[in-house]
């Protein structure tokens, strides 16, 4: 081992991985105790969801000098994003979020690489999930978080989840084999006020139903929902609603114009301050983890579920022990079998391989294969090759109809394409 290169590798100021411009740019953070700029430059981070949290984390990680940042988002930009999503300040409405984010980040720090994916997280090449150092979630649905955590558990990658609700937020870092995954304690979608068709004709059971009925009254007259930018249209729905409130809920107050707007045009309320707090905590945990992944000590990652209440300026912490019965990471989870095959192999050829690994199956009722790493899960055909079915390197295929030690066992096949 050449001692000179080793010396410069450990030095921030003389690291050969950094250009002289980078050394100047990062000078103040190169002085941080325990910091290693090269470790960050050699890192790859996946940011899934480039919205209120994702843009803030992306900005932070780019400024800190993380080498490769993948940006995944299926959404386009709307002007209502501009109260908190700094990366879109000069964008046109309708441009893909991931693309504009990459463009702005390149201007902020041209020394890193930004790869954008205008796509569902499900359709992104599995190899990107397999080779990234960690995932950051800035997602707005539980379904999407569940898709991401499956990849995190299977590829044993840390996933730093964040979320907000009005003046509150949370950060939770999934650490493989250490704390609970998101399926150990399944999250639930937010309940939204909707009016079932059956209650449409009856008397309103809840005060909120009055407002929904007011909206439906407008729709019955105009065949479209009220335009929330036109005060007269909102008022039609509001007046109808408040007449119902007076009749059925005389003890409670009337709805305001603003309440009517929020009910008709439903969006989660968010503000930059809360997003910035949560995203900054996500970033700081990521920076430590990236050092750890490269074998460098830098603090400790918080394994607990952190809640921030911006109304009182306080943090709360909840311990998250793994659930032994979790169907994703616990004893009830399907086994992961890694199989390396050339892309010209058919799925049929997997059957004898899986047999050699101690599995049995009914020869009359052969096991079935399901392609999971897609937006729409579909059954794979045994007689066709991996290439013909566009099965990609590191793709997960769910296999049912197997037994091991006389017990039914489902298996996740992790397909490695030979030579890729």
């Amino acid at each position, binding site marked *: 081992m050449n001692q000179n290169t080793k010396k410069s590798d450990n030095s921030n100021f003389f690291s050969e991985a950094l250009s002289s411009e980078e050394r100047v740019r990062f000078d103040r953070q190169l002085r941080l105790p325990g910091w290693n700029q090269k470790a960050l430059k050699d890192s790859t981070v996946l940011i899934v969801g480039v919205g209120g949290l994702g843009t803030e984390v992306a900005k932070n990680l780019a400024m800190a000098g993380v080498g490769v940042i993948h940006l995944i988002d299926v959404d386009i930009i709307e002007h209502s994003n501009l109260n908190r999503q700094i990366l879109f300040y000069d964008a046109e409405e309708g441009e893909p979020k991931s693309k504009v984010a990459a463009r702005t980040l390149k201007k902020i720090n041209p020394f890193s690489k930004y790869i954008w994916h205008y796509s569902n997280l499900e359709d992104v090449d599995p190899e990107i999930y397999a080779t990234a150092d960690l995932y950051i979630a800035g997602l707005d*649905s*539980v379904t999407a978080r569940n898709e991401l955590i499956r990849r995190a558990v299977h590829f044993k990658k840390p996933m730093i989840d964040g979320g907000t*609700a*009005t003046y509150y937020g949370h950060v939770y870092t999934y650490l493989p084999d250490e704390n609970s995954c998101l399926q150990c304690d399944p999250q*639930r979608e937010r*309940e939204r006020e909707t009016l079932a068709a059956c209650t449409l004709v009856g008397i309103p059971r809840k005060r909120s139903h009055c407002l929904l009925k007011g909206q439906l009254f407008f729709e019955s007259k105009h065949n479209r929902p009220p335009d929330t930018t036109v005060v007269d249209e909102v008022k039609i729905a509001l007046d109808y609603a408040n007449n119902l409130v007076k009749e059925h809920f005389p003890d409670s107050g009337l709805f305001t114009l603003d309440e009517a707007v929020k009910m008709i045009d439903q969006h989660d309320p968010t503000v930059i301050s809360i997003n910035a707090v949560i995203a900054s905590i996500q970033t700081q945990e990521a920076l430590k983890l990236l050092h750890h992944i490269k074998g460098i000590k830098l603090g400790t990652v918080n394994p607990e579920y952190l809640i921030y*209440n911006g109304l*009182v300026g306080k943090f709360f912490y909840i*311990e998250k022990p793994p659930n032994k019965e979790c169907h994703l990471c616990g004893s009830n989870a399907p086994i992961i079998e890694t199989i390396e095959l050339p892309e010209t192999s058919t799925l049929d050829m997997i059957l004898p391989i899986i047999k050699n690994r101690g599995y049995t199956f009914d020869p009359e009722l052969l096991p079935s294969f399901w392609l999971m790493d897609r937006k729409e899960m579909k059954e794979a055909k045994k007689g066709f090759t991996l290439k013909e079915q566009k099965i990609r390197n590191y793709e997960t295929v769910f296999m049912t109809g197997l037994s091991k030690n006389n017990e039914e066992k489902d298996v996740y096949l992790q397909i490695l394409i030979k030579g890729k």
Partner: protein
Amino acid sequence: MSEEFEELSFDEEEEEIEEVVEEEIVSKTPSTKTPAGKKISVYFQSTIGPSPKQEKLVVATDAPIDDIKYTVSQIFGLPPEEFHLSHAGRTCDPGDTFEDYGVEDGDTVLLIPVSTAG
């Protein structure tokens, strides 16, 4: 007057329990077995809202969590759809009961935000 009423209702309950024991005479279940719906004291602590709050409440362990949540929302003045109840790191499903999560007398249950927006 009110004491008489209470005694009356106790008599009724005891009669019911005795009937059950007679029917299941072959079972080894002792007659002292705690009936379902044990009452426990639980500390409810909010992490959300404009001022942190803690309330000690007596709850039935077999009451639907949806019902408990609704009552707690009235006491704390917070809309029920804005929080989940969380015990020992597990988020309580509205369809379950505290029994399902092993909530015991003296335990703390947190009101946590439904922070799923990104």
